[in-house]
C-alpha cells in the first residue's frame, strides 16, 4: 500500500498546487514530510523481512501492474527524496510560478513510481511522463536556447520510447506477460529463443536514450547545461537514474553483461574526452554525467554481487555530488554572468565563499578523495570487477575525471568580495553533509565485510595516483583542443546514433 501511496500522494499534491497562491510552498513542505514518513515505513517493513508487493486492480500479475519494494528501489527512492529536499531548500527564496511546483511534484511522483514498478508497460508510461515533465522544466524560463535544447530532448526520447514499445510488443507476443520477474522466468526456461536478442536490443536501446549513455543520449549535454540549476540537478540526479533503474531491471531478465561492459566503457571514455575538451562549466558537468553512467554500467555488467552493490551505491553518490555541483556552479554562473571557465576565473572574487566551498566538496566527491562519496562507492564497485582490462578502463576514467576537474582549481582560492545575494547555504550543507558522511550512509546498503575490505591502503594509493595523473594530464593538455566534433549533438546525428546503437546491441547479443 505504501508503495503506491508514495507516487499517488505526489500527484495529488501536484494537482492541488495548480491552484497556486501562498500555500504552494507549504504544500511542497507537506509533500516532503509525507514522503519521508512513507519511505521510513517502507524501510522498516523491509528491514523486518516483510515482502512488499502489490498488484493493482486485482488482475493476475502476468498482466496486472505489479509494484515491489526491493533493494534496488528503496535506496534510489531515498536519493530522490534527498534531492527533492535540496531543490526545495535551493529554490526557497526564488520567485517561481506555481506551474514549476506542479511539474516538480509530477516529476518526483513519477520517479517514485518508476523505482518500484515491475511492469514493462507501466515503466514505459512513467518514462514518458518523466520525459514530458522534464521537457517542460528544461524550457521553464522560456529562453530560446533552453527551448531548442528541450525540443531536441523530446524528439530523441520519443524515438527511444517508440523502440522500447516495440520491444514490449515483441516480448509480450512471445511470452504473454509484461512482468519482469515472470519474463525472466520465461527466458530462463528457454534461453536460446530467437526473439530474445531482438526484444532485448529494442528494450535496452530504448531505455538507453533516457539513461544518459553515449551514442544514445546525445541530447543530454545541451539539455542539462542549459536548464536552470535546480532543474539540472534533478535531471542529472533523478531523471537519468530512472533510465538506469530500468536497465538494472532488464539486466535481471536478459543476459546483458557484455553489452553493459561495452556500452559502459564507451560512455565513460567518450564522456571524459568531451569533458576535458569543453571550457563551458555547465557543459563539463553534463558530460561528466555521461562518463559516470559509464561507471554504473561497468559495475552492473561485471555480474558479481559486490560490483552490483557498488553500482547502486555509485548511483546514489553520483546523484548527491552532481546535484551539489550543478546547484553551486549554477549560482557561480549567475553571479559572474558567464559559464566559461576562463571568465569565471577572472571574476572569481564575486563568487560567494559558501558556493566555492560547495564546489570544492563536490569536486572532492566526484574525483574520489577519501572519505568523500565518490571514493567509497568507486572502491566497492571496483572490488567486484575482476577483468583486468575493465579495471584499467575504470582507472583511465578516474584519471580523466581528475584531469577535467583540474580546470576548476583556479576558481577556489580567492578573497571573497561577493555581493551576490540568494542564501542557499542550507541546500549546500544538506548535500555536502551527505557526501562527507557517505561511508556511514552506504553502510546501510553495503554489507560491512565488503566496505571494510575497500578501506585499505591500495585504494588510497589508487585514488592518490589517479588525482596526480589527472592533474598532470590537465597541465599537458592545457589550451589544446582534442578536436572532437560538436555537430554530433544535433537531432539528425542523434537519431542515426540511436538506430546504430540498437543494431550494435543486437549484434552483441546475437553473435557474440
Amino acid at each position, binding site marked *: 500500500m505504501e508503495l503506491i501511496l508514495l507516487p499517488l500522494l505526489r500527484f495529488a499534491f501536484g494537482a492541488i498546487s495548480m491552484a497556486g497562491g501562498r500555500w504552494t510552498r507549504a504544500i511542497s513542505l507537506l509533500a516532503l514530510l509525507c514522503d519521508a514518513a512513507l519511505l521510513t515505513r517502507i524501510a522498516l517493513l523491509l528491514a523486518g523481512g516483510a515482502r512488499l508487493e502489490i498488484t493493482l486492480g486485482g488482475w493476475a500479475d502476468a498482466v496486472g501492474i505489479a509494484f515491489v519494494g526491493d533493494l534496488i528501489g528503496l535506496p534510489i527512492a531515498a536519493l530522490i527524496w534527498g534531492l527533492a529536499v535540496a531543490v526545495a531548500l535551493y529554490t526557497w527564496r526564488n520567485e517561481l510560478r506555481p506551474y514549476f511546483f506542479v511539474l516538480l511534484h509530477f516529476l518526483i511522483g513519477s520517479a517514485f513510481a518508476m523505482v518500484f514498478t515491475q511492469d514493462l508497460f507501466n515503466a514505459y*508510461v512513467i518514462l514518458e511522463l518523466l520525459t514530458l515533465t522534464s521537457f517542460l522544466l528544461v524550457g521553464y524560463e522560456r529562453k*530560446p*536556447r533552453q527551448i531548442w535544447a528541450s525540443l531536441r530532448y523530446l524528439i530523441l526520447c520519443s*524515438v527511444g520510447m*517508440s523502440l522500447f*514499445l516495440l520491444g514490449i510488443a515483441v516480448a509480450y507476443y512471445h511470452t504473454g506477460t509484461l512482468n519482469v520477474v515472470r519474463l525472466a522466468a520465461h527466458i530462463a526456461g528457454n534461453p536460446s529463443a530467437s526473439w530474445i536478442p531482438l526484444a532485448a536490443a529494442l528494450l535496452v536501446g530504448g531505455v538507453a536514450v533516457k539513461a544518459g549513455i553515449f551514442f544514445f543520449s546525445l541530447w543530454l549535454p545541451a539539455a542539462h547545461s542549459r536548464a536552470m540549476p535546480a532543474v539540472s540537478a534533478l535531471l542529472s540526479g533523478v531523471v537519468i537514474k530512472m533510465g538506469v533503474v530500468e536497465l538494472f531491471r532488464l539486466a535481471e531478465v536478459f543476459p546483458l553483461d557484455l553489452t553493459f561492459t561495452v556500452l559502459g566503457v564507451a560512455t565513460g571514455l567518450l564522456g571524459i574526452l568531451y569533458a576535458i575538451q569543453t571550457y563551458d562549466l555547465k557543459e563539463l558537468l553534463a558530460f561528466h554525467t555521461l562518463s559516470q553512467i559509464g561507471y554504473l554500467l561497468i559495475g552492473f555488467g561485471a555480474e558479481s554481487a559486490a560490483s552490483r552493490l557498488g553500482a547502486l551505491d555509485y548511483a546514489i553518490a553520483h546523484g548527491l555530488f552532481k546535484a551539489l555541483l550543478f546547484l553551486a556552479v549554477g549560482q557561480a554562473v549567475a553571479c559572474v554572468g558567464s559559464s566559461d571557465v576562463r571568465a569565471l576565473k577572472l571574476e572569481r572574487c564575486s563568487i560567494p565563499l559558501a558556493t566555492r566551498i560547495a564546489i570544492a566538496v563536490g569536486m572532492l566527491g566526484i574525483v574520489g578523495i577519501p572519505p568523500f562519496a565518490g571514493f567509497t562507492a568507486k572502491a566497492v564497485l571496483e572490488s567486484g570487477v575482476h577483468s583486468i582490462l575493465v579495471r584499467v578502463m575504470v582507472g583511465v576514467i578516474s584519471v580523466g575525471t581528475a584531469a577535467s576537474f583540474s580546470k576548476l582549481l583556479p576558481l577556489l582560492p580567492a578573497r571573497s568580495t561577493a555581493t551576490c545575494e540568494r542564501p542557499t547555504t542550507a541546500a549546500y550543507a544538506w548535500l555536502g553533509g551527505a557526501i562527507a558522511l557517505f561511508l556511514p550512509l552506504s553502510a546501510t546498503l553495503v554489507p560491512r565485510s565488503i566496505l571494510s575490505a575497500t578501506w585499505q591502503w591500495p585504494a588510497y594509493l589508487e585514488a592518490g595516483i589517479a588525482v596526480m595523473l589527472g592533474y598532470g594530464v590537465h597541465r599537458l593538455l592545457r589550451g589544446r583542443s582534442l578536436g572532437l566534433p560538436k555537430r554530433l549533438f544535433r537531432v539528425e546525428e542523434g537519431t542515426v546514433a540511436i538506430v546504430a546503437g540498437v543494431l550494435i546491441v543486437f549484434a552483441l547479443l546475437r553473435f557474440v
Partner: protein
Amino acid sequence: MFGFNGVTIAIVLFGIGLLGLIIRRDLVIKLLALGLVNSATILCLVSLGAQESGAPPILTPDMRAAIVDPLPQAIVLSAIVINFAILALALVFVMLLVERYHTTDSARIERESDTEEETWN
C-alpha cells in the same frame, strides 16, 4: 510473420519516419515524421495482437470463445494519448522557436542558438 501484413507495413513506416527525422530539416516535417514513427509502433502492437476471425474483446452475455487479446489494445490506447501529448507540446515549443528565430529550419536554429550570447539572470 513477414508476409504482407500489419507488422511489415509498420516496419516500413517506422523506417520512413526515421528517415524523415534524419534528412528533413524543417521542424514541422520532423515532428510529422516523429508522429509516423509513433503510429508505426502502434500499428505493430495492434497487428501482433490480431488474429484471424477473432471477435472484438467486448464482454457480452452470448460471447463466443475466440476473442482478440485485449491487452495490446489497452496498451495502444495509452500510447496514443501519450504520443498526442508529446506532439502537441513539441508543436508549442516549435511555435516559441519560430517567434524568436523566424524560421523552422533546424540547421539555422542550431547555428543561431549556438552563436547567441547567453544572458544569465
